[in-house]
């Protein structure tokens, strides 16, 4: 009874102030600025936020690094594109279908890779994405090869409405993942991350939760991928490439793994940084990737996870919010 009440009530006081602020700011921005260009940049930023957050729920909470996230992003993007261009499914049908497929495949891959740890898990995920990438070229008749599929139906009438649709999804994904990560599922994942043996000897079916996280991660990435394809009205092999996979990893890591808020911040701020660097377009990519290295060096676990934040309760509260089992809530009886 208590559990259901918690799902439907909204513990505002427990949320991360920063997370809420950023989401709100994003929502207000197009109303304040008339610049369509900025809106299009924001569209990409929130899409990357979806990618980074869905990546985090698996890797941040189990510490098994998924290096092939492009598999779900591009895979669902292509699927949605094909459903749309070949079978004339409208985007609002194609995208969920593609995402569901991605989720189910995530279930399968999660199951197949259960026994793999560390570098092996990482490389197998990379390999899966690589295979899909190569297939995109080999099956060029369906996928359009190098050029991809163009002329996909757009999401809504214009960029601003597109943005608000995607923004709503991003907000939804954010809260879904926050609740998930704070629920029994998230706590169990953290336990698995800490020590799978002890989790097992606490009676937990660790395999189930790992697979579930993989599936959810894949599903949400698929939603993002589908939205991306229709926002750009085009899907090409870049969305299956290693570059996308690595970029998502970097955005989430620099933001702060295992927090959901961290990847959100990482995606938004690094996308902004990328745009600011357009001032020096010729060197932009080089400076950007160079800065990413500096950021990882300075904050190996991400900015939200900095030791400074961990030790400073106010900073921690401001960035991460209040988690149920981290502080007394005043309802425990004391002996």
């Amino acid at each position, binding site marked *: 009874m208590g559990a259901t009440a918690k799902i439907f009530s909204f513990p505002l006081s427990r949320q991360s102030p920063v997370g809420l602020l950023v989401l709100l700011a994003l929502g207000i921005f197009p109303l304040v600025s008339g610049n369509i260009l900025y809106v299009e940049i924001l569209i990409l930023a929130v899409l990357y936020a979806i990618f980074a957050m869905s990546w985090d729920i698996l890797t941040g909470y189990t510490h098994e*690094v998924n290096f092939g996230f492009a598999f779900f992003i591009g895979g669902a993007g292509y699927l949605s594109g094909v459903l749309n261009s070949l079978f004339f499914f409208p985007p609002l049908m194609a995208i969920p279908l593609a995402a569901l497929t991605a989720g189910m495949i995530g279930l399968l891959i999660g199951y*197949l890779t259960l026994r793999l740890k560390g570098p092996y898990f990482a*490389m197998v995920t990379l390999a*899966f994405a690589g295979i899909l990438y190569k297939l995109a070229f080999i099956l060029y008749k369906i996928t359009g090869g190098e050029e991809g599929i163009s002329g996909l139906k757009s999401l809504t009438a214009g960029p601003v409405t597109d943005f608000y649709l995607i923004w709503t999804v991003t907000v939804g994904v954010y809260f879904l993942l926050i609740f998930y990560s704070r629920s029994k599922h998230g706590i169990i994942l953290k336990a698995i991350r800490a020590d799978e043996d002890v989790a097992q000897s606490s009676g937990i079916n660790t395999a189930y939760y790992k697979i579930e996280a993989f599936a959810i991660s894949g599903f949400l990435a698929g939603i993002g991928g589908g939205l991306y394809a229709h926002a750009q009205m085009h899907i090409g092999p870049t969305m299956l490439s290693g570059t996308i996979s690595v970029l998502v*990893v970097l955005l989430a890591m620099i933001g702060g793994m295992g927090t959901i808020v961290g990847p959100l911040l990482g995606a938004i701020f690094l996308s902004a940084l990328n745009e600011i660097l357009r001032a020096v377009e010729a*060197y932009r990519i080089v400076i950007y990737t*160079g800065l990413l290295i500096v950021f990882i060096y300075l904050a190996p676990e991400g900015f939200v996870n900095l030791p400074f934040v961990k030790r400073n309760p106010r900073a921690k509260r401001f960035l991460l919010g209040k988690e149920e089992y981290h502080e007394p809530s005043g309802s425990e009886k004391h002996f």
Partner: protein
Amino acid sequence: MDILIIGMVRGALYSLIAVGFVLVFSVGGILNLAHGTFYMLGAYFTFIFYSLVFNSPGGVLLLSSVLLAAASVSALACLVYYLLLKRKIDSHIYTMVMTLALALFVSEVMSLLFGVSGTSVPSLVEGHLSISGIKIINQQLIILPIAALILPGLWMFLKKTRTGQSIDAVSQQRTGALLMGINVERATLITSGLSAGLAALAGALIAPVSSVVPEMWLFPLIKAFAIAILGGMGSLTGSIIASFVLGYAEILTSFLIDEQLTEMISLVVIVFVLIFKPSGIMGYKQG
């Protein structure tokens, strides 16, 4: 017949790349995702030394360029280990992501400096050989004796010299070696340099006959990993054998089935071995 020789050349090339990769994994416990980058820089640095620094033709200068390239990449790898990796080498995530970020960065730098279409490096040995009526490029051929010299040399280094033996000890059992007073950090440093040097040499040697482009770091890395898991992550002989297996598999696929599928092989190998037979490889290295 040509398949036999071409396959052998490819196997030899791969073994130069893979052996270092496996060594770093068993000694440092890390998956150095910048390994392919070292291979790439071997090619690019050769070009830089030959065309920009020396700026005059000549076989000797070319050879020196190759050697300088390998040496400088080696030094670079040591620097990377010392400055960036050593501080958090126990974290798989950190080392993998950091080396990957480096790979990306270097790739972009090369793209900026030399363009997306890459550069070209002249051959050390010109011309080609005709063996039973098939043309084989000499430049590719020399990889064979070079590998044949280096690999046993490496083996001797590891088994006979003091430094080599300490590296060998660490690769078997990190904690045990630590307890024996072996300087694990130094061993890892030397191994990083050595491994990168080999990869760079491979890159320099093959550069004249293949494309030197900013993306050339990715697939050698993937192949190195495929070879490593095929041959056993800790075994040097295993990886040499696996290099040839992969080399031949690729050549055969290319000739007999479809050239497009060659790149798929290493990917499929990784997926199949790790999913269906992880125990054979997994149990080997307990980090």
